[in-house]
């Protein structure tokens, strides 16, 4: 019986080798990943009892603050405005980790950031319990409130940017949630809230403004126009083919206009008129003429394909590759596989508004230490030039025409010039389309650039970005201009 006993020893060796390997995997190879898991609250435990710094909005109002309580954690994270800023601040939960700015700026808020080094040094010397620094956001509470009210209960998102600096003035995502429900120290209540949010089909935890990728629809025509103007072969008055239906090569299908009519007399329409009435056939044929490469390059200059940390993580918008002619035509009007976040669409308007220069979006303005001394103030960063100044001016004129007399008239503001573009994005047979609107105002001296997307855009044929989304954008722009 000794031979099988020796073999059994071999099996035992195998069992233990497996354990040596799996333990090494957990404690060495996977350790970094495990430590970085969003649900890993060990860091939070290390911070227990520490005064976490507040998150403020522009003007100093607190939207996330540590409230002293009489339990083991000593401080309860509370969000005085509840759901209003949920997707910007994120949540801070002992059991489920952190998200949003709570996560992105955790080192500052918990007081462990290198930037707070001198502060920590003095804490060490004086034996003071380290306190967290505060983070002031670029969000303007008035604009945020206006955006939230304008969107109402509808599913979708609103982003407002300062075109000159990239500062995010408002960021709303619907449906939203109450971060207080997750931050509570009552484990059972937190669990119920968490499970409820996970079970919700509308996914309230996702920040649609930065984390959801939509087909941008006709708002993408701004980029197609930009590509045309930048090529040097087109002006706003160049005539394009705008038939009622565009024959797509290689296929038997066609690309049609929403009304099913020609875009101009004899099927000819100028570039500016095509944008004004959002002529699909004209932009489809224009896209095929310019080619997929030109569209891809122009979209990248507007920010597509770039990974952004603002410092919230932003989903990467994309323009598809390896397109044939009909796919290029579809993509030129923002359909097919073109995907963009609402933030990206706002960046298109912002770049045009800013004379063609694209600024890096940003939600954090100032970082202060616990004594409110400024540790860091962010200065505006350029991401690059999207279009020449001339092209930007031409695009502004074209987008003004959209609002003055085209599909976007509902965004008009008394006494202010508004430039914008509507969009209605199909995303599946029989599904209500997404209603888009992106704009900036005042057109001659832009203070704000906006993107609005509404997911349940009514019935298939009635949904125009102009009807649903433009009034929302209007209210947000007014809030900025009147402040």
């Amino acid at each position, binding site marked *: *019986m000794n031979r099988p006993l020796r073999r059994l020893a071999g099996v035992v060796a195998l069992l233990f080798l497996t*354990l040596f390997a*799996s*333990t090494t995997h*957990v*404690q060495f190879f996977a350790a970094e990943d495990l430590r970085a898991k969003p649900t890993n609250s*060990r860091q939070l435990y290390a911070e227990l009892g520490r005064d976490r710094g507040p998150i403020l909005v522009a003007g100093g109002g607190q939207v996330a603050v540590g409230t002293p309580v009489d339990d083991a954690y000593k401080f309860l994270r509370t969000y005085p405005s509840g759901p209003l800023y949920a997707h910007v601040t994120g949540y801070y939960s002992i059991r489920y980790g952190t998200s949003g700015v709570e996560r992105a700026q955790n080192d500052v808020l918990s007081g462990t950031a290198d930037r707070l080094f001198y502060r920590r040094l003095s804490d060490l010397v004086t034996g003071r319990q380290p306190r967290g620094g505060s983070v002031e956001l670029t969000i303007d509470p008035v604009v945020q409130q206006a955006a939230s009210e304008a969107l109402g209960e509808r599913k979708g998102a609103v982003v407002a940017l300062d075109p000159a600096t990239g500062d995010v003035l408002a960021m709303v995502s619907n449906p939203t949630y109450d971060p207080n429900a997750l931050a509570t120290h009552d484990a059972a209540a937190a669990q119920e809230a968490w499970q409820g949010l996970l079970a919700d089909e509308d996914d309230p935890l996702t920040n649609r403004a930065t984390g959801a990728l939509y087909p941008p629809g006709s708002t993408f025509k701004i980029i197609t126009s930009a590509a045309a103007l930048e090529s040097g072969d087109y002006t706003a008055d160049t005539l394009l083919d705008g038939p009622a239906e565009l024959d797509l090569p290689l296929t038997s299908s066609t690309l049609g206009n929403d009304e099913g009519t020609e875009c101009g007399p004899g099927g000819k329409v100028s570039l500016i008129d095509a944008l004004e009435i959002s002529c699909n056939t004209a932009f489809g044929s224009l896209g095929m003429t310019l080619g997929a490469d030109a569209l891809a390059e122009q979209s990248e200059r507007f920010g597509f394909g770039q990974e952004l940390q603002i410092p919230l993580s932003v989903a990467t918008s994309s323009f598809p590759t390896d397109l044939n002619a009909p796919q290029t035509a579809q993509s030129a009007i923002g359909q097919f596989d073109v995907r963009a976040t609402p933030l990206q669409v706002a960046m298109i308007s912002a770049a045009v508004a800013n004379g063609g220069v694209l600024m890096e979006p940003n939600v954090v303005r100032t970082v202060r230490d616990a004594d409110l001394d400024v540790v860091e103030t962010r200065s505006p960063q350029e991401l690059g030039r999207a279009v020449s100044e001339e092209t930007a001016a031409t695009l502004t004129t074209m987008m003004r025409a959209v609002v003055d007399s085209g599909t976007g008239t509902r965004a008009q503001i008394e006494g202010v010039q508004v430039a914008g573009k509507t969009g209605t994005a199909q995303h599946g047979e029989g599904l209500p389309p997404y209603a888009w609107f992106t704009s900036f105002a005042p057109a001659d001296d832009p203070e704000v650039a906006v993107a609005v997307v509404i997911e349940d855009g009514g019935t298939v044929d009635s949904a125009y970005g102009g009807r649903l989304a433009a009034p929302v954008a209007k209210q947000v722009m007014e809030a900025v201009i009147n402040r």
Partner: protein
Amino acid sequence: MATVLPVYPRTRRGVELLLLLLAVALSMSAYAVVGLTETGALPADFFLHGGALGVLAGVLHVVVRWRASYADPVLLPVATLLNGVGLVMIHRLDLAEDSALASRQLVWSALGIVAAGAVLWLLRDHRVLRRYTFTAMVAGFGLLLLPLVPGLGKTINGARIWIGVGPLSFQPGELAKILLAVFFAGYLVVHRDALSLTGPKLLWLQLPRMRDLGPLLVAWGASVGVLVLERDLGTSLLFFGLFVAVLYVATERVSWIVLGLLLFVGGALAAATTFSHVQQRVDIWLHPFAAENLDRSYQLVQGLFGMAAGGLLGTGLDRGRPDIVPYAESDFIYSSLGEELGLAGLFAVLLLYVLLVERGLRTAVGVRDGFGKLLAGGLAFSVALQVFVVAGGVTRVIPLTGLTMPFLAYGGSSLVSNWIIVGLLLRVSDLARRPAPEEPAGPGGDTGATQVVRLP
């Protein structure tokens, strides 16, 4: 010409004492470190508590000298060190959680060591146990199924492998393990020839006869029954693994292993697809980080986070947060040690188990009687398998189960049972290493005829 001379192995009791002192010194240093980190001073009862384990193990050492002087010298020190490290970690968790489990564990350690001593004292020859083969079977299966008795069984963490009498909880499966090892060894040493030499052949596999299959099917049925009724994959895996291993050693037939594995995998798959609690465990095992599993996988995930926080060298004793993990002192003592002693510490712990198991298997190889081989081999393998099931569950090799780390984890039933196993292994190893009684070598005796002839 060379003559084979009788060899008189040294008893090695001195080595055992030395290793034992080392084990006690290591445990006491760890205890001191915890105290120094927590309060900056040695614990008030340092010499009382720290010395208790040393005194107990010392007494067992004396019993070994007296009653099993040729026993393997490594088993006792390894078991003592594991027991000591476990005690320190449980004490450390007591400090964090304001509980008093360590002193209870110390009492259980004493009981376990006394039980091991009693085995050595009362059981002069392990072959006596053969007489109780079927008694062991009845008692073993009885204990195994005891948690199913309504009113007696308790469901803890979804597994019904506990019995509760008043405030006391006991895992009868731990004791059943020993009894069933005795039964398997006793039964198979009698039936091994019938099992290994007859039966039809299928391809290269020599299949057993149908009537010999009976006991295999019974063992399989019992394991799957445990899995289904007590909801514990670990216990089921442990018993079936033990049975197949002993069966293989007895019959030297690979076909048993193949059949056994097929049966077990089949049973486990069927259970995994049929029963929601098994499905849930598997789902947690495969996707512990999925948002919808977070509440149920909390313990597993926190254990992994703890181990990750420990990294290569650990946070140091009393410097981590192993208390975040539910059941950090029992089910998850492996991750608690991983957090504070690091990968290095866990490697040391695993090597201690390797030593323990290897010494047990070596005993099985060395002992002359078939029953002793099967008993020692089975017990040693059961320890290895149990370590694998627990640590494998914590590190996500297999789904998590309700078994405990031998010697380390908090829990009286497990500790006492494992000390009894050490007692039995010591007993068998004594017989394995003890020289055969010397034959009077008269003139012209047998020894003179034994020659080794060197061929040209």
